[in-house]
């Protein structure tokens, strides 16, 4: 790509998105917020896959892995949100700290 955009630009962008996603996962008490952080982390991984595919000679393997990651993210979101809604029906809250009834 012209204009002086290198692989490292994309890697640093991906690193920033990953860090923000990790911060979201760590600091949210809301289960849906945690899932949003996971989505950000998966997106950063996909940026890495596509950047390496682009700067590694234009093979399609990286893009295919990115599509698999998107597919698994969709499955994860469906199951995660179904679990969140089931928890909400039982506990009337999705505060992950308030739902530890299994603690001995």
């Amino acid at each position, binding site marked *: *790509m012209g*204009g*002086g*955009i290198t*692989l*490292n*630009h994309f*890697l640093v*962008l991906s*690193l920033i*998105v*990953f*860090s*923000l*996603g*990790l*911060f979201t996962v*760590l*600091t*949210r*008490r809301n289960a*849906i*917020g945690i899932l*949003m*952080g996971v*989505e*950000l982390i998966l*997106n950063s991984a*996909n*940026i890495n896959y*596509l950047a*390496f*595919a*682009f*700067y*590694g*000679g234009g093979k*399609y393997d990286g*893009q*295919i892995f990115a*599509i*698999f990651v*998107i*597919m698994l*993210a*969709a*499955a994860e*979101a*469906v*199951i995660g*949100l*179904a679990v*969140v*809604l*089931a928890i*909400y029906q039982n506990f009337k*809250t*999705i505060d*992950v*700290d308030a739902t530890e009834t299994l603690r001995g």
Partner: protein
Amino acid sequence: MLAQVIFYALAALTVGSAMLVAFSRNIVYSTFALLGAFMGVVGIYILLAADFVAMVQLLVYVGGILVLTIFAVMLTAGIGDVTVSNRAVGTGPAIFTVGIAGLVMLYAIARTQWHQVAAVTPAPTTYAIGNAFLGEYVLPFEVASLVLLAALIGAIVISRHEARD
């Protein structure tokens, strides 16, 4: 020069929206900020000559996952309360952990000599990806359909109302 401007604009959109997702106190704002993050990532994909993946991202993330998340946010009442969406870990330990992980990865990025080939010229990728899915990657492709079926059935089983007796 133009590519640089586009890259930095898309990166600013992505990072700004992701910061809003991470730091907003209201979960509804976070959800809508996620739209900006996903759209920025779509632009980044197009910049990386991955037109098909960009469209899949648009359809699955923006059209599917984001709408699902908004539904979940709206279905759980009282979620806008600050007490529900406030911090679990303190901000200090979280910044410490993220800082350590980020610095380690930044160091790895800076130190590694990546194997790089001359950048490709963007070309339509759908044909090649379709061939790879039904050729070299046919087994993972079929297993993926099983995973999606399992997720579908699992979501229905988990979220239906049980007849309690």
